[in-house]
């Protein structure tokens, strides 16, 4: 039995999330700063303080006088990191390497005195930390590689993207969440499946295949997920590397000033506020992808969440903070579904609520999420819809509660469509498979079911 499992089963009362997380962080920083291996890999479950770790490691490396490059995957992630670095240490000279497009970075960076921005790496030479996207770094040429690098969201980075930038640094800290969506390619890459350097595999897969002895760490505590969500997400998506929530059952509360009107959306909101989960179940039906009824139901739930003047209490502050549109997100599987939900929300006069696909919600955090189930109303379950990471992202963005809108009959659909992906020789089989994870989540959601006929 692993140490983690012992902690989970044995000494529940003795589990101190703060101390556990601090111990893990200390070990990671020690290996990063004083280790002998060229790389350190950190697995981080949703909301486990990955960004905080990256910022801290960056500051410590900079303090130790080691020139550092940071590789993130999207411009939004890069800007976010730069803002966090500047917030922690406004004096630190940080370089933001950006593209030569119009509006290449967040305007908020202009107000930071320590941050220099340029489209040319040469302009940023000598700065303590230089941050950019993998795509931009790939165009950079250097004579002398950086002493150190941090690769953020390394599980979402493709192997070929790492190949393009790995020559720029001597050693690196790789941080990411193995449970989120795997990188993908729009063209088939089956001919390379099973090769250790399969270009469409994730960067960490390739890295570990070639360097199996690299130290691997794990952040053990999710600070985002509430006590109601962490066990389910941990069991369903991280069965062999469990994690805990940083808060206890009573630490987070979601209350509403306006009482329920007894409608389906209101009942599911109350269920989710009380238990952390709610399943609004519409009658079984095969529908097009942008199922108008389900889309309207999603919009209605969001509308009621706002109308009922929600207030969220958490460990962060003793006072309740109002549940504003900015604290709510809607997650879907497809872009056209997101567009349909946006249109439905606009029709109800709702603005400011984030509506996006699982891919784009990765790494984001909200108080309440409303999810259109990827399998709702479908006649079949394809590999895309069964993908473990997709459901994991959708089910792990919230700090308080998650409402899932779904048509009845998904359990039958799952039984009719077991995963049938061809087995590729030489590739590591990922556990759990999406089929199993979907069943696990659905079984839990059924306990918080609110049937509704709109």
């Amino acid at each position, binding site marked *: 039995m692993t140490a983690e499992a012992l902690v989970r089963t044995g000494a529940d009362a003795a589990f101190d999330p703060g101390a556990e997380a601090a111990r893990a962080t200390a070990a990671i920083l020690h290996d990063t700063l004083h280790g002998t291996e060229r790389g350190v890999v950190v697995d981080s479950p949703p909301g486990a303080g990955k960004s905080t770790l990256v910022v801290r490691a960056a500051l410590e490396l900079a303090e130790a006088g080691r020139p550092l490059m940071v590789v993130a995957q999207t411009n939004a992630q890069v800007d976010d990191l730069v803002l966090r670095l500047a917030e922690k240490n406004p004096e630190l000279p940080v370089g933001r390497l950006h593209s030569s497009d119009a509006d290449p970075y967040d305007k908020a960076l202009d107000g930071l005195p320590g941050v220099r921005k340029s489209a040319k790496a040469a302009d940023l030479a000598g700065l303590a930390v230089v941050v950019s996207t993998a795509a931009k770094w790939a165009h950079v040429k250097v004579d002398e590689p950086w002493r150190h690098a941090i690769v953020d969201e390394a599980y979402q980075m493709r192997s*070929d993207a790492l190949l393009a930038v790995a*020559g720029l640094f001597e050693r690196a800290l790789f941080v990411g969440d193995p449970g989120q969506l795997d990188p993908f390619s729009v063209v088939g890459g089956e001919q390379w499946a099973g090769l250790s350097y399969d270009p469409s595999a994730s960067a960490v897969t390739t*890295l570990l295949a*070639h360097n199996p002895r690299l130290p691997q760490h794990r952040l053990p505590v999710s600070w985002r997920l509430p006590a109601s969500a962490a066990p389910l997400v941990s069991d369903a998506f991280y069965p062999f590397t469990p994690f805990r929530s940083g808060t206890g059952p009573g630490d987070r509360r979601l209350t509403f000033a306006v009482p329920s009107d007894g409608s389906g959306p209101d009942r599911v909101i109350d269920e989710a506020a009380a238990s952390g989960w709610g399943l609004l179940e519409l009658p079984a039906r095969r529908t097009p992808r942008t199922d108008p009824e389900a889309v309207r139901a999603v919009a209605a739930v969001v509308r009621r969440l706002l109308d009922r003047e929600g207030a969220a209490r958490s460990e962060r502050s003793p006072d309740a903070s109002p549940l504003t549109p900015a604290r709510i997100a809607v997650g879907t599987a497809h872009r056209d579904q997101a567009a349909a939900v946006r249109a439905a929300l606009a029709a109800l006069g709702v603005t400011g609520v984030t509506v996006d696909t699982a891919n784009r919600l990765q790494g984001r955090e909200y108080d309440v999420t409303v999810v259109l189930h990827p399998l709702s109303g479908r006649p079949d379950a394809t590999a895309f819809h069964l993908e473990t990471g997709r459901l994991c992202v959708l089910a792990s963005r919230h700090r308080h509660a998650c409402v899932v809108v779904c048509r009845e009959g998904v359990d039958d659909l799952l039984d009719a469509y077991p995963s049938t992906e061809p087995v590729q020789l030489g590739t590591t089989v990922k556990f759990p498979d999406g089929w199993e994870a979907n069943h696990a989540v659905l079984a839990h959601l059924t306990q918080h079911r609110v049937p509704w006929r709109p």
Partner: protein
Amino acid sequence: MSLISTLARLEAVRTGRAQPATTVRHRHLSDRPLVLVPLVTAGEIGAPLGALVGTDRDAPRLLAVPQPRDRDLRFAFLAELADAVLPHIDACAEVVEAAERTEADPETGKRVKVEVELCADAAQVIVPSRAGVDLIRLLGRSTRFRRTAEQDPEAPFPAPPRVPLLGRWLTHYGERARVPGSSLLLAMTDLLGRHWATGQSTLEDQHLGALLAWIDPPEGASGAEAALRAELARDAEGQLLCPPAGPATDPAFDNHLLGPAIERYDRARTALAAAEDGLEADERYGAVSAAEREIRALVLSRTRPTWDAVWHGLDLLRRLPAGAHVADRWTRDRWSFTGHRDRIVSGEPPQPRRDDAVTAANKLATREREQARLEAQEALDDPLVMAGRRLAGEAFAGEVTDVVMAYGEGRRPSPRPLVTVRTDDRPQLAERGKVYRSLGGKPQAAEFVEEAGEGLLVLRIVDKMGRGREPEPGSVPEKGDLVCFTLFEHEQRGGAKLPDPEATPWTHGGPPGETAAVPEAPDPLTEEDVL
């Protein structure tokens, strides 16, 4: 499957005929394509049974292997195939035109233009189905490492002279076929499936006979009836009227016709080997020839319908005019063809069994870029394809209802006119999302500003208006113009340059070792190789 193709398939079911999915032809068709209709032995995918090959539809060359398990006969088949295919490739490789290419100067490292040869045309190979493309790859894989007696006098079973060269070309064609939009090696079912939507599933579209039945049904029959007949109808002896396009054969044919014929051939050969004198041998040799002729006739009877079907498909496709960007993509195929020709001439070893990390990443990047390029070019070339993108919310067309001149901020105000477009389409526009339209073949970008009312989209044009304060004439749409904007980019940026294979970083296992520098040895012979 996109919404428009689903609708087209429903329409095909209702009308009983395949519906056009395009208004132009999106793949290059050579004037003299080399058509290859291969067959393999059931249960032994790498054992060819025969083929029809050639560039003249009335005079195909028949190749047949009377005993597919006999390695000598298999090599004889491959030698004959090389004899049929390589002269066609050589003929194309000889005719060149001068072209320019930018290359890094080996001394200064600067990008300079160098004059190089570009083959004026490349040899195009057409097979009936996707399984045929796989067989081409397999044949390439199994022959390109073979050694001829000239290369290695010690080789216990030397390959006929041109067979390894054939393997290298087949491998190149098989790899190139994986690049979206390339036309060097095409499967007829893919070609027809791209240009027509039938009333059956895409899986059923893999049957060339059924696919053609939907597209061009015989007089008086509906596509569905004709397709069913093509798939299932059998003659009095239980043989399919429309034999499968291969390379696999119908089991009823294997069991009742081919199997007995091969047995007769085997018996005749055994008898010949046991002949005691010349006279007897002569007589028995006649029996062997007769048995061989019988098998050749059987192979011909199964390949000839497919051969005709492929040419029928070519006729149908040639009726469509070529899309505007097809020639551009074919030029890329010609570069690929020329590049391979040059590698062979310069004496490079055959393609390795597995790509190294850098080659694999480069190939994947190329294919992704070509995929995006192909999707954009097809939409720009073809209003019907664009309609599909509009229906999917990835493009919109409409009339310009208003143009307001505005200027950008900055020291030198540049024109940033606001254009209002009225459209019935429902594009999935994001705030400040970029949209593009084609302006004289070049993409002009605009930014989505707001939706001013139901179906009224306000856009800000941001480039291609010249350097002056006033936009160049014709560069800004005018009121009443019909415009079509896409949410996807029209041209693809080149990706970043990857390191050289010798500089593969530690994360990817470091440079491929010294072993990779020497050509790979062929697979060692096993007992099963020599029956």
